[in-house]
């Protein structure tokens, strides 16, 4: 059964890799295909090859620009991440960085061999780019969730839950209209085996526990807040980025990260044999890896989600502060039970109040001053791990 599912996944992914989004080649492959000219959806300049030639190479960024780029987007003003790995590498360190990445992924370099500069480069890429197109992420997630359950064997929701879900779906549809250029499909799923909470998972799946669904029906605009927050995690691609960080943070992850980047380095050149081997051998390993780790978002990612949800709630003419208060009054965890990885109630409250007042530079600058801009993705993970320790 399991092999059948994985084989099915492999075939699906092989097709997806060779023909994603109805015949469109994913940006990540276009962007690094030697000589291929294309304009990414966001209107950014044509991507370069790996390594880029001098004429088309993007301007190399200063250290300050790079630090600012990898800082948490707590004002929701950064463009969403694209699959422009080659372009980003060139921006990071020009031809030298491009050659460095090529050496990292195409040699047998071990995780323990990575230098500080290698790690900085990888952290930069894990923070500023995504290595898996949204269409493929959604396909992996669909199979992953079917295979692992509780979705595979889950009974359909009870009548009461069906009605509550329908009401939340309506809110979600309204929210989606407020977000331009949304990167993925969102699927709202009730997981009756989930003890508590609501959270965004890989591939645009938002899981709700029965407890949360029950409370959301009474939360009024608090439900809009929760949806906007979770949808923000999907928008910012937090789940896949956490996986990227995990891949570059351990030796077993590193071997998979190399394969993923190696595949990307082939660009749009479809190699049936190579892609077949990739789909049959690497993708199942990635799924196994994802299963073996618990994807937890860091504090900065929660703040990013709060920031984007604020922008979208305002677009829906919903007062983010009131929505947050309604959420907290109905479903908020009491402080004694709060986990350390989330911003405090007071911190969030102050942020939402300032957002409503129209000024968001204060808290953003404050967080920057604390030094969070200096943290790369790996550091964020390390911080989160430290915080999770009992």
């Amino acid at each position, binding site marked *: 059964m399991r092999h059948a599912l994985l084989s099915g996944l492999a075939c699906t992914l092989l097709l997806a890799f060779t023909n994603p989004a109805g015949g469109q080649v994913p940006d990540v492959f276009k962007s690094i295909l030697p000589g291929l000219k294309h304009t990414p959806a966001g209107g950014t300049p044509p991507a370069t090859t790996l390594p880029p030639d001098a004429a088309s190479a993007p301007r190399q960024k200063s250290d300050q620009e790079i630090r600012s780029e990898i800082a948490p987007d707590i004002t929701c003003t950064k463009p969403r991440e694209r699959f422009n790995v080659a372009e980003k590498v060139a921006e990071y360190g020009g031809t030298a960085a491009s050659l460095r990445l090529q050496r990292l992924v195409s040699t047998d370099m071990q995780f323990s061999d990575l230098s500080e500069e290698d790690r900085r480069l990888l952290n930069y890429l894990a923070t500023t780019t995504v290595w898996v197109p949204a269409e493929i992420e959604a396909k992996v997630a669909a199979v992953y969730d079917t295979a692992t359950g509780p979705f595979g064997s889950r009974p359909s929701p009870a009548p*009461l839950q069906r009605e509550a879900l329908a009401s939340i779906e309506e809110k979600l549809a309204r929210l989606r209209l407020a977000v331009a250029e949304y990167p993925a499909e969102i699927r709202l799923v009730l997981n009756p085996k*989930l003890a508590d909470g609501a959270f965004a998972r890989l591939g645009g799946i938002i899981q709700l526990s029965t407890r949360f669904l*029950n409370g959301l029906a*009474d939360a009024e605009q608090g439900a809009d807040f929760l949806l906007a927050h979770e949808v923000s995690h999907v928008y910012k691609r937090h789940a896949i980025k956490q996986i990227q960080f995990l891949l570059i943070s351990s030796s077993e992850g590193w071997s998979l990260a190399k394969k993923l980047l190696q595949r990307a380095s082939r660009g749009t050149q479809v190699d049936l044999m190579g892609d077949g081997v990739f789909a049959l051998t690497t993708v199942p390993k990635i799924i196994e890896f994802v299963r073996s780790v618990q994807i937890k978002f860091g504090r900065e990612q929660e703040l990013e989600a709060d920031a984007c949800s604020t922008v979208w709630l305002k677009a829906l003419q919903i007062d983010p502060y009131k929505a947050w208060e309604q959420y*907290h009054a109905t479903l908020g965890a*009491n402080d004694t039970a709060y986990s350390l990885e989330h911003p405090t109630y007071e911190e969030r409250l102050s942020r939402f109040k300032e957002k409503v007042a129209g000024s968001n530079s204060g808290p953003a600058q404050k967080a920057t001053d604390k030094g969070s801009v200096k943290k790369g993705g790996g550091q964020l993970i390390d911080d989160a791990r430290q915080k999770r320790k009992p």
Partner: protein
Amino acid sequence: MNPFCKAPNLLVRALTVAAMLFGSAAAAAQAGCEVSCAKREACEVDVDKEHKPITQGGYERIQNCALVTVKTGAVQVRYRHKGMHMTPILVANERVQDLFLKFPPDACAVSSGACLQERMNQMNVAHAGHGIDSAKASPGGTGQPCARGLPCGMILPPGADWHFPLAERAFEGRLELTMLRGGARQGGSTQITFPVRDGEIRGDGTQLQPSAVYGYRLVQPDGSLVASGEFAVLGTTAMTTLKRLAEQNSEKQGLSLEAAWLDALSANDMDWDLNRLIAGK
């Protein structure tokens, strides 16, 4: 290939199938169910050849349901099959045993404290810290709270005279509640204590807030912990929906409102209240 090599495999398979059939038949033979008189008629059943009238309104729990044969009227039978809530109606001369052969009952065919405990224990506590704001969750608790009769899962908003018995009828002590999620900042009580006397918990349940999640500790008079657990209170909107669903079901199925209400509780996995209502009948 030596054909004899296959023989042990075939024998094992045959024995397995026989064991499965025998096992499911044995489980079906002992499975309980709940019966109610539908269509607002007089109903009678035979339970192992013993005549038994089934009253209208509510449900009656029968321990060995495979022995039930309907004599007169239309009898609604309720039990769980593959986790689904089954409510077929049987008429004169129809046997529950035949129904069980087609749709075998689960081990937890009818709800009980032990089944509720098992369900709560199976919940995925590992993921409970994720999401918008994390909180520790332990729905199965410690000390088998659901099996002891303490609230578990989702419960109806309690009334002013909230009381329920524990399985251990001689227990003395107290139940200490802490609001884990909900309107603590809106003036709600975060800590509530109910006394436990002669194995019964009694107090003003209106202190509990709809939609809120509570954690509790059952302690002895000296403060030593006996069991701990969690439950959520059904929200106001959900309560309105539940009532409407029960009314619709009552009209559609010709059931008494009481029976339809119990159906609604069962269909929505509100086992704790269901058990209390059926046991208190």
